[in-house]
């Protein structure tokens, strides 16, 4: 597929342009903040000459474009400066906290797609009968419930009334240890050959991941159902059924594939929303991830940390969308042709 490759390359080019734009946006955001950035970084008790030296070292006295140049130069070397909250380089903070968030988001974002597809197909197949009504009614309620309400609800149910799952406190039970390879705890435990640790890590993941994924899953299920029903009236379905192909083959082959493509193509946005919601869920479940770190940084006005987090999220988001685009191009041959959506 040479055109697939060319399209991907082109998207990659745009991704870089967007990233540069994003860095400008973040840089402007940093400079919009009222107050002296050097004073803000060092705290009110720092002596004036230290602040003065810091100001010169950070090029705060030069014009904004020059400041941006130096900032970008540092950032591209992976240097986001020092966090005023943890007093450590932002980069090493991110390296420590990012894997936990990634693991949570991956679990909340990817496996539920399959449930969503199954529910969507069931809803369409049993249209206007009780399984469909049940799924639709459930999805209305579930979609209407904000993620943080799910998190709080799970905390109440599993933390106090039905303590079968760990609901508070990190990624592993006390006393367990897994050698870090990928940073993804369940995977690392499996690599290390510790199935019980893997299970324990999974149990810790389950509630926060569920809280994050419920709304999106039902949204995707609804989308799949409605595209199934819409496509059911298309000529190509009438045509293939007029040829005497059994209903089951039509539903699971000729109807399902065109109907899931729109669902898959919004996956990138869903993942982004999950990243956003992870901010609260990590705080509520005490999950040692980047979002909780960023939440602390946001509330503590730790500008360097906020910039690092937002830029990293931007990179992740752009990469995810690129991957989603590739999957969509594989599923839908028409997409390989047209450059822009």
């Amino acid at each position, binding site marked *: 597929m040479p055109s697939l490759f060319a399209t991907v390359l082109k998207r990659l080019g745009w991704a870089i342009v967007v990233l540069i734009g994003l860095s400008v946006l973040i840089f402007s955001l940093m400079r919009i903040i009222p107050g002296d950035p050097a004073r803000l970084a060092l705290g009110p008790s720092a002596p004036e000459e230290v602040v003065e030296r810091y100001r010169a070292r950070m090029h705060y006295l030069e014009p904004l474009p020059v400041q941006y140049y130096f900032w970008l130069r540092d950032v591209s070397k992976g240097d986001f400066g020092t966090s005023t909250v943890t007093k450590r380089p932002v980069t090493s903070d991110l390296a420590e906290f990012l894997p936990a968030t990634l693991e949570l988001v991956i679990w909340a974002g990817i496996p539920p797609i399959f449930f969503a597809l199954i529910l969507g197909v069931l809803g369409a197949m049993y249209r206007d009968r009780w399984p469909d009504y049940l799924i639709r009614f459930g999805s209305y309620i579930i979609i209407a419930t904000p993620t943080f309400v799910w998190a709080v609800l799970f905390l109440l149910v599993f933390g106090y009334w039905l303590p079968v799952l760990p609901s508070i406190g990190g990624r592993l039970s006390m006393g367990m240890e897994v050698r870090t390879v990928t940073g993804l705890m369940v995977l690392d435990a499996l690599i290390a050959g510790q199935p019980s640790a893997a299970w324990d890590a999974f149990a810790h993941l389950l509630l926060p991941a569920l809280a994050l994924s419920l709304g999106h899953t039902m949204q995707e299920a609804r989308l799949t159902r409605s595209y199934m029903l819409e496509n059911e009236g298309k000529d*190509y379905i009438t045509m293939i059924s007029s040829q005497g192909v059994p209903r089951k083959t039509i539903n699971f082959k000729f109807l399902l594939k*065109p109907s899931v493509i729109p669902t898959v193509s919004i996956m990138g946005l869903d993942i982004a929303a999950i990243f956003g919601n992870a901010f609260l869920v990590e705080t509520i479940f005490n999950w040692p991830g980047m979002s909780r770190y960023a939440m602390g940084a946001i509330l503590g006005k730790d500008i360097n940390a906020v910039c690092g987090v937002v830029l990293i999220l931007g990179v992740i988001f752009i990469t995810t969308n690129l991957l989603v685009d590739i999957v969509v191009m594989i599923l839908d*041959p028409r997409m390989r042709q047209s450059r822009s959506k």
Partner: protein
Amino acid sequence: MTRDGENGMNDPLLELSDMSVSFDVYGRKYHVLDGISLTVRKGERIGLVGESGCGKTSTLKAILRVLPRNAVINGGTVSFSGKDVYKMSGRELDNMRRLGAGMIFQDPSSALNPVFTIESQFLTALRYSLPPNTPKHELYEKAARALESVMLPDSGRIMKSYPYQLSGGMKQRVCIAMTIAAGRELMLADEPGTSLDVTIQDQILRLINQLVLDGNIAVIMVSHSLGVIRESTGYVNIMYAGTVVESGNTEEVFKNPAHPYTVALMACVPKLTGEDLSKGIPGRVPDYSRPPSGCRFSSRCKFAKEICLGTKPPRIEIAPNHFVSCYFAGEVI
């Protein structure tokens, strides 16, 4: 080709009698087909003519029982080879669709699934039409031969293609190949080629005519073009707003049109001599949600009398095999 068939051996292959269908849209009923009757015998070529939206496509879909979900059958029967299509078991219905009748859709671009290759669609459909456990290479050969018979010689490339990689004419040919590959007895051709270039449309029509003659396939040719019908059918049904207003041997109907609508329709065709520019038919098609209780053409008919508004006109045989649904059939010209 005469109506009775030379040897009288021809039992009807397909018979619609008094078929009535309505569509439910937002709680309103649209009576789209109102008492359609027509008969097709083995190898016969019949035409179905009418303006856009008069129910031609719905008639074809009703035959194959593939009407949209919101369609309601209000009465009448469709029988294929003597069996009531709407009382068939799932197996019988499948058999009818696999070997009995096949439909060619008006717009070839929407009739092929955009995200599957031609091969995948063609072979899946063919697998169910041929005996079970037919090896895949046999299916493939059969499909390739069908593609060649519709003048698509590069079958290998076509099979690997996705619909968007083919031209409209090629897609239409693929659809035709899918319909004839398994050896169906009846082809329902819904305005073939109208969405394509005129020259390509012409080629497609010629191709269909050739195929049905060669294969002794019966065909219902739907068209709003009188020229096409005159050229390629032996018997014609004129439809207006969900009713068949006139039917008869094509030559006879064209020579002696008897229904005011048929007369007006023929007047609309510009003559090559250019002497008479078309006048059009004044008025509009009736509201399908509240159709008149009498003749559906009455609101536009310049001969309409009291009686036309009140009760539906009966079907009268004004000449052998020439039927007209009008109180004043034959008197108006």
